C-alpha cells in the first residue's frame, strides 16, 4: 500500500508546523561566519560549530551590536524551511558571547563613536553646583544604589531624587535604560542632573552600558548626565559620553553634591569676612572723620598762631618802653645838669652878684651917675647902695 501523496508545498508546510511546535523558539550558540548585510535591511549569516553549519537570517534593525565573522554569539530564533527547501533560522535576537567577541565589538563601536566626536571634551557640560532635583537610573535593589544614597544623604539635603528602576544587565537592560533617560528628558519639570549608576561586574555584565542605543540616548540628553558604571578600571562607552564620569557609584555621589560639612566651614569664614568688611567700613569712616577734624583744626590753628605772634610782640613792648624811659631819664638828667650850670643863681654862688638899677640888671654904666640907687643881689643877701662915682672899664 503506497502512502498518501502530498504536494511539495504541503510537505514543507507540515514540516514548518512541526518545527514550530517543537521549537517555537530556540537558543543556539555558535560562531558567526559569512556575515552579509543586504540593502541595509536584512542580514544573512551562518552560525556554526566544529561540525555543523546553519544558515541564519535576521532584519538589520534587530542587530544591536557590531558583529564580525569569527565572533561567538548566542542567537534566539525559530527554524524554518524556505520554499526553496532551504533551512534557515529566523533570528530575533543576537548576543555576543565570550570576552573576545565582546571586546572586539566594544572596540568597533568605540572607534565609530569617537570618529563622530561624541567623546570630545568640548561636548561636556558642567553639572549644576547645587542641584535640587535628581533623576537616578539604576537598579534600586543593588549595593550601588545603597552606597550612592548613603553618601548623598550624608553630604547634602533638600534634594528630590526621582528613581527610575531598571535592569542594569541582561537583554532587556539597554531598552529600559534608554527609556528611563528619555522619560527624564520629557518631564514637564525636568530634573537638574541624570545619574546612571551600576556596580562592578564582568565585561558581559556591563554590556548594557556599551550598547549603542544607550550611548546615543546619553548623547541626546538635554539634561546633563553623570555616569558611574562598575569599578575604577571599567570604562564603558556610557562613561565616555557622559558629561561627567564617576569611577564608582560612591564617586558619583561625591561629584553630584558638595559636602555640607565643608560648606559649613566655608560659611563660617564668609561670616567672619562679612564682619571684617563691616569693621573696615567703620574704620574707614572713623579715619575719614578724624581726617576731617584735623583739616578743620587747621582753620582754628592759624588764628591761634596769629594770636601767639601778636602776644609775643606785645610782650616785648614793656622792655622796649623801659629802655626808652631809661634813655630819656639820663637825657633829662644831662639837660638838668646843663641847665643847672647855666642858672644865674648858680653863678652867684661863685661870688658874682647881680646889680640892678631900678629893677633891671645892668652890665654897663648907662643911666648910672653919682647918687643913683643900686640894688645888689649876692648869693646870700642883698645890698641897697648909693653910687658915689663911676669909672670906665676894669683895667
Amino acid at each position: 500500500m503506497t502512502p498518501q501523496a502530498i504536494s511539495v508545498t504541503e510537505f514543507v508546510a507540515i514540516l514548518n508546523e512541526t518545527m514550530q511546535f517543537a521549537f517555537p523558539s530556540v537558543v543556539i550558540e555558535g560562531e558567526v561566519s559569512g556575515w552579509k548585510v543586504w540593502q541595509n535591511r536584512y542580514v544573512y549569516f551562518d552560525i556554526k560549530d566544529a561540525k555543523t553549519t546553519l544558515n541564519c537570517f535576521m532584519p538589520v534593525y534587530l542587530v544591536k551590536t557590531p558583529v564580525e565573522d569569527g565572533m561567538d554569539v548566542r542567537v534566539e530564533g525559530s527554524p524554518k524551511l524556505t520554499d526553496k527547501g532551504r533551512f534557515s533560522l529566523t533570528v530575533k535576537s543576537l548576543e555576543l558571547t565570550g570576552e573576545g567577541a565582546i571586546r572586539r565589538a566594544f572596540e568597533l563601536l568605540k572607534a565609530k563613536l569617537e570618529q563622530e566626536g561624541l567623546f570630545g571634551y568640548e561636548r561636556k557640560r558642567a553639572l549644576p553646583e547645587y542641584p535640587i532635583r535628581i533623576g537616578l537610573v539604576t537598579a534600586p535593589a543593588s549595593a550601588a544604589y545603597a552606597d550612592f544614597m548613603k553618601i548623598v544623604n550624608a553630604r547634602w539635603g533638600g534634594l528630590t531624587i526621582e528613581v527610575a528602576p531598571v535592569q542594569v544587565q541582561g537583554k532587556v537592560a539597554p531598552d529600559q535604560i534608554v527609556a528611563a533617560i528619555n522619560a527624564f528628558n520629557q518631564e514637564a519639570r525636568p530634573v537638574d542632573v541624570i545619574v546612571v549608576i551600576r556596580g562592578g561586574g564582568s565585561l558581559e555584565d556591563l554590556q548594557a552600558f556599551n550598547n549603542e542605543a544607550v550611548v546615543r540616548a546619553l548623547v541626546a540628553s538635554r539634561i546633563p548626565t553623570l555616569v558611574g558604571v562598575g569599578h575604577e578600571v571599567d570604562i564603558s562607552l556610557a562613561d565616555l559620553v557622559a558629561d561627567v564620569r564617576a569611577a564608582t557609584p560612591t564617586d558619583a555621589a561625591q561629584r553630584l553634591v558638595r559636602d555640607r560639612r565643608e560648606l559649613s566651614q566655608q560659611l563660617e569664614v564668609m561670616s567672619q569676612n562679612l564682619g571684617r568688611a563691616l569693621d573696615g567700613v567703620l574704620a574707614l569712616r572713623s579715619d575719614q572723620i578724624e581726617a576731617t577734624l584735623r583739616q578743620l583744626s587747621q582753620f582754628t590753628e592759624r588764628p591761634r598762631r596769629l594770636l601767639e605772634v601778636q602776644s609775643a610782640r606785645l610782650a616785648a613792648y614793656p622792655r622796649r618802653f623801659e629802655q626808652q624811659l631809661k634813655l630819656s631819664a639820663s637825657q633829662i638828667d644831662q639837660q638838668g645838669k646843663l641847665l643847672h650850670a647855666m642858672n644865674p643863681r648858680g653863678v652867684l654862688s661863685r661870688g658874682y652878684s647881680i646889680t640892678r638899677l631900678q629893677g633891671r640888671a645892668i652890665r654897663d654904666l648907662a643911666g648910672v651917675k653919682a647918687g643913683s640907687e643900686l640894688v645888689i643881689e649876692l648869693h646870700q643877701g642883698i645890698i641897697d647902695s648909693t653910687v658915689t662915682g663911676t669909672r670906665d672899664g676894669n683895667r
Partner: protein
Amino acid sequence: MATAKTTTFEFGKKLQELEAITAVLEREDVDLDRGLVQFEAGMKLVAELKAYLAEATNRVEVIKQKYEA
C-alpha cells in the same frame, strides 16, 4: 496628589548673594548706612544657609512606571 514645595531653597543663589554683599562692603566707597543694612542682610543669609545645611533632608521618589522596550 503630590504636594510640591511652593518655594525651593536655592542654596547656590543665596550663597552668591552673600558673596556679593561682602564684596560691596569691601569696597572703599560704601556709605555707612547702606553698609549696615547690607551687613544685616548678609548675616540673615548666613543664618538661613547654616540652618539649611543643618536641617535639610532628601526626598526619594521611586517611579512606579515600568520602562519597557
